């Protein structure tokens, strides 16, 4: 029970990171972006490339940090990957979504993202192969927190939680303390009024993709660290991330954080009573329950 709760919190942190970017994009550009979770795969594979590169260039930093299976090289690669993935997200917007947007059929965006997701997923599969890989082939031993009831936590999982919380903390400070954060929230609230006040809409949209892509990359690396990296990971994570976004309320960053933890915990607790083979279905049930009970999510506002 406590073990499930703990596992739920740890995986929930990853969903939260993915959901923050998705909720911002969905709110600002008003479409369900089916290609968002592919950014998690892009981030994970990008970090894999840079990790190998850094290890090759500077073998010194290939050592593990403390008890973690994470190396300094991978930590550095993760930061680089966040930047690269953010730029990738911006580039995809510039190349595809912006053009579709300017043609003016709002629903086209949804299936543009549908097609983009399919292309990205399979290009990754072509480049890196279809079989799963790992950042490190060492076996990560779990720490025993308590014997009775037995509670196990891997050091990596603790790192994942801390790293996710740091990312969220920085985002919170940016959104609430800087002029840029005010501009971003102003655009989310009322795009035309924000433009009247001299905020450049295009710059803000680019920034949203940059932030969303960066956080997605972090989520992808952290997921890869505790699970495995496959070209299908984006596909597997898409539904939980959508569920977190809807549960939190589309457009609410803090809602997305809460939604991520909610989905992670609920799915892990449900596995106590339902066979684990059914776990991919839980996010869908959560979506249905949220839509029936509270269609605007925990912290969302009504908007048509």
């Amino acid at each position, binding site marked *: 029970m406590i073990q499930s709760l703990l596992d739920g919190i740890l995986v929930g942190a990853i969903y939260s990171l993915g959901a923050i970017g998705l909720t911002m994009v969905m709110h600002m550009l008003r479409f369900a972006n089916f290609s968002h979770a592919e950014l998690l795969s892009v981030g994970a594979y990008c970090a894999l490339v840079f990790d190998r590169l850094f290890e090759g260039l500077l073998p010194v930093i290939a050592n593990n940090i403390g008890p973690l299976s994470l190396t300094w090289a991978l930590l550095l690669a993760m930061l680089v990957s966040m930047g690269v993935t953010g730029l990738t997200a911006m580039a995809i917007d510039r190349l595809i979504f912006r053009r579709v947007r300017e043609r003016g059929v709002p629903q086209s965006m949804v299936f543009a993202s549908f097609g983009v997701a399919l292309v990205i997923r399979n290009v990754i599969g072509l480049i890196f192969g279809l079989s799963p890989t790992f950042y490190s082939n060492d076996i990560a031993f779990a720490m025993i927190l308590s014997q009775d009831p037995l509670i196990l936590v891997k050091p990596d999982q603790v790192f994942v939680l801390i790293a996710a919380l740091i990312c969220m903390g920085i985002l919170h400070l940016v959104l609430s303390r800087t002029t840029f954060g005010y501009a971003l929230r102003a655009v989310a609230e009322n795009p035309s009024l924000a433009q009247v006040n001299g905020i450049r809409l295009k710059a803000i949209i680019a920034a949203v993709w940059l932030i969303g892509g960066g956080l997605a990359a972090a989520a992808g690396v952290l997921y890869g660290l505790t699970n495995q990296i496959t070209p299908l990971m984006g596909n597997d994570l898409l*539904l939980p991330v959508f569920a977190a976004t809807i549960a939190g309320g589309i457009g609410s960053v803090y809602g997305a954080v809460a939604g991520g933890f909610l989905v992670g915990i609920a799915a892990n607790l449900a596995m106590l009573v339902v066979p684990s083979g*059914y776990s991919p279905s839980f996010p869908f049930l959560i979506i249905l329950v949220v839509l029936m009970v509270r269609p605007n999510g925990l912290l969302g506002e009504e908007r048509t």
Partner: protein
Amino acid sequence: MIGVLSYLVFFATMASILAIAVLGLNLQWGNTGLFNGGVAAFFGMGAYVTLILGGLPQPDRLGGFALPYLLALLGGGAGAGLLAWVVGRCTLHLRHDYLAIATFGIAITFENVARNASWLTGGAQGLRGFEKPLQDTFGAGLSYNAGFLAFVLCVLALVYLFLERLVASPFGRLLRGIREDETAARSLGKAPARIRLTAFVTGAVILGLSGGLFATFYGFVSPQDVLPILTFQIWAMLIVGGSGNNLGAIIGTVLVWAAWTLSGWALSRFAPLDMQLYTGSIQYILIGSVIVAMLFWRPQGLFPERLLISRPARSRGTTSGQTGSTDT
């Protein structure tokens, strides 16, 4: 010669079955503007329910009710409709994103349940124990397949005529009216949420029939048949053909299905041995690119929706000298 003929029959049967599915999606997206991201679930529901209702009794699982074939097929359609009703009830009165996400979710959930609930669906091995109808009369082989093709073509023609009537009817006008301007429709006393639900469920029943025919054709269905790629294929067919145009949808189906089988054949024939594992990925990239490229190049499809002029408006136009107004 016989080989070519059998292949043509096989190709035409698959294309016709898929065309029925594309017509169902066209009612949802083309005429009503509802994004269905889970085509595979409704198709699969039709396939599974048809085989469960029409199959022979099995010792190790529920189902196999051995119902008459047509009843089983209709049951498949009804099953898909029921699934659509549940999803639609929860999402259709909300912003349109929710339907897209919920339908995507139902497709993942359906495949997941089909894989795990082996007491009902046979699990990963799929559903066996179905005897093709009238096999005694027509025998096996080409003659049977040709007969089945004729049956599928009949169903396709019926669905096509039904949809053409529906689109031209006042209800069809209402669907387009809601698609174009929901507020205006509401101001005229229409209930958009209920009408959208009707259109969504009707489209899903057609998708289910198509799935049922697919399962009949193979006498077998497994979770491999309801993978997300099916949703993408059917979407590509509709977008290439032209959403909103039923004839265009059928032509789009034939074109994309031909391109799909041809590219699959070319890849398996000419790709180097070490690349054979990745031919699927290459085909998926092609489908994804077709969807995105059509949006840029020709978003209305090869055969765009014909803007219908309603009969009263046209007759008024001729009597009072107006040039006619569109109702979309």
